[in-house]
């Protein structure tokens, strides 16, 4: 029965994504509906994850579909930290469609069912949780970067409705994207360091290589930001490039290996 919780979560997240799109079209009142959709969906998905965890002997989200389910939850959790503040609510415009997509994929791949799974060690569980948390951070960071580009475009085009639909300021979005990405980078670094200590010679596969490349790319973007003052549009584009690598290349290498 608990697996049915995926539906309220999916519907509520979907409602939130539509509500935020409606806000962009001038229906200001939908913003509140959006955040309630996120909250209700998050509660339903949390219930589902708890049920999955209780019924499992080990780490309940070992499969790729299960991992996507958990990733969607982390993304929404991270968003809720900021999204409760009205000014930041519209970060959900970029984040919620991603969450819906992840959860829908997880459902299609059977990652939202409640059944006993093979027990795995705690190292595997910690590894998976850390890497998923890192990817969730990159997803939210990319959402903030995308919103930065959107807000910058509105400012450049001198959109008359700019003050009716107030997004966070450019500087706030820039800083938010940088901070979240830094958190993601720290988590990913932990994963990579922990992985290297467990690695036997010759075990390096494409997924690991791409993970290290992602780490290097994000690290480079943040170092250039700190040392050279890379900010604004270029920084946002750098984060989106990194996220594209995560979102497209990593799944391909994962399934290929």
């Amino acid at each position, binding site marked *: 029965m608990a697996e049915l919780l995926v539906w309220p979560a999916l519907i509520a997240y979907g409602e939130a994504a539509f509500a935020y799109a409606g806000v962009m079209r001038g229906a200001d009142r939908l913003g509140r509906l959006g955040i309630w959709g996120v909250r209700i969906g998050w509660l339903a998905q949390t219930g589902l994850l708890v049920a999955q965890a209780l019924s499992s002997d080990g780490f309940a989200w070992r499969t790729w579909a299960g991992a996507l389910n958990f990733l969607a939850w982390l993304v929404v959790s991270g968003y809720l930290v900021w999204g409760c503040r009205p000014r930041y609510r519209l970060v959900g415009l970029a984040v919620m469609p991603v969450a819906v997509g992840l959860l829908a994929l997880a459902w299609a791949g059977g990652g939202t069912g409640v059944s006993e799974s093979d027990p795995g060690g705690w190292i595997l569980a910690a590894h998976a949780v850390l890497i998923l948390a890192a990817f969730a951070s990159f997803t939210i960071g990319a959402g903030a970067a995308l919103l930065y580009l959107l807000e910058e475009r509105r400012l450049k085009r001198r959109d008359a409705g700019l003050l*009716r639909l107030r997004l966070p300021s450019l*500087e706030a979005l820039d800083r938010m994207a940088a901070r979240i990405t830094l958190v993601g980078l720290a988590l990913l670094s932990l994963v990579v360091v922990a992985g290297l200590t467990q690695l036997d010679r010759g075990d390096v596969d494409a997924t690991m290589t791409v993970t290290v490349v992602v780490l290097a790319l994000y690290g480079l973007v943040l170092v250039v930001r700190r040392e050279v003052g890379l900010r*604004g*549009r*270029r920084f946002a584009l750098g984060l989106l490039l990194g996220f594209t690598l995560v979102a497209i290349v990593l799944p391909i290498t994962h399934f290929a290996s």
Partner: protein
Amino acid sequence: MKLALAGVSHHQAPLALRERVAIDLHAAASLARRLASADGDGCEAVVLSTCNRTELYLARPADDGLTDRADRALLELAGADAASLAPVAYRLTDESAALHLFRVAAGLDSMIPGEGEILGQVRDAFTAGAPGPLLDRTFRMALHAGRRARVETAIGESPSSVPAAAAALAEQVFEGLADRKVVLVGAGRTSELTARNLLSRGAVVSVVANRSVERAERLASTLGARGVPLDQLPDAVAEADVVVSSTSAPGLVLTHAELSAALRGRRGRPLLFVDLAVPRDIDPALAELDGCFVYDIDDLEAVVASSLAGRRSEAVEAERIVSAEAERFASWRASLVVVPVITSLRARAEVIRSAELARVESRLENLSEGERAAVEALTTQIVNKLLHLPTVRLKEAAVTAHGLHYADVVRDLFGLGEEDE
């Protein structure tokens, strides 16, 4: 208790008439005191006078001629223009007068919906006036309604003027304006107004540039900045966060060719150009530079127009809040009908309780202080518990059509008032 209002506002009365009856806060306070003490009949008075309205609020236990009295006082203010004022003045009573005041406090009756000053003006008028029980409650509820409308809706958030729009746009670019550097180009009134709006949000004016350096220095000294000639502008702009320009120059003052080299070192750090001049001072091509945003007077006016449209849509929600508060006021006012009955009932019960205790005084002589206190508390509690439900029911009935009927029944059942006869 009756409430009456007589007033004129921008809706009906032209400025020439409004200025005849406009008075400052001091005069409003004197008038309110004079009206309150005129007949020694417990009259209450508050006079609200702003650039858009002059309104006299009077309240008194009896209705006899209260509205006429407010009306006469208003016409007296107009003096020789009383005849022209009479047709455009409005007179409201009781709940309608309260609802009007609530709408005024919420900014719903203002020229620009939700404008911020009116709430403070209502508060000042209330403080300076001569309110009694009814006006005190009415104005407090009006101030509460005004605050709710501003907190629970976005009616007061959007800018309603070009300088305010420029400042709000700067806040869309920067995370707060504290210590942001503003460069003013031109030392005219428009630049100054915009600068003052930015200053009020924490920004600092670093440079005032003008063709005449003396004028630049004169304005700069009042803003805590330094005045420079126009040829030093590129260096000043390279360090700035916001540039506000409003000169009467016939051509562009800040061009892409001139500034692109100076701005290269900013590495995309945001820079907002606000061009208030006609013809324009700032090259629109500057918007092509990374991090540069250029707004001219048309853009700002479009932003203001859009914001005002937003305010009007928020006004619908604010009207709902004001109506709810007006209903609360009506309920409270209706409850006043039963208050004397409840007071009499409780006084009667207390008399009986005290008399019965006095009657058995001789039998309680042997009780200790503690035991006496317990008996006092017990009897008081019994009386309170017995009267609690009838009190609640009476208050509930007061806001319905049965209020007076209930009050009469209680008076009759308990013989209230008979002992006086």
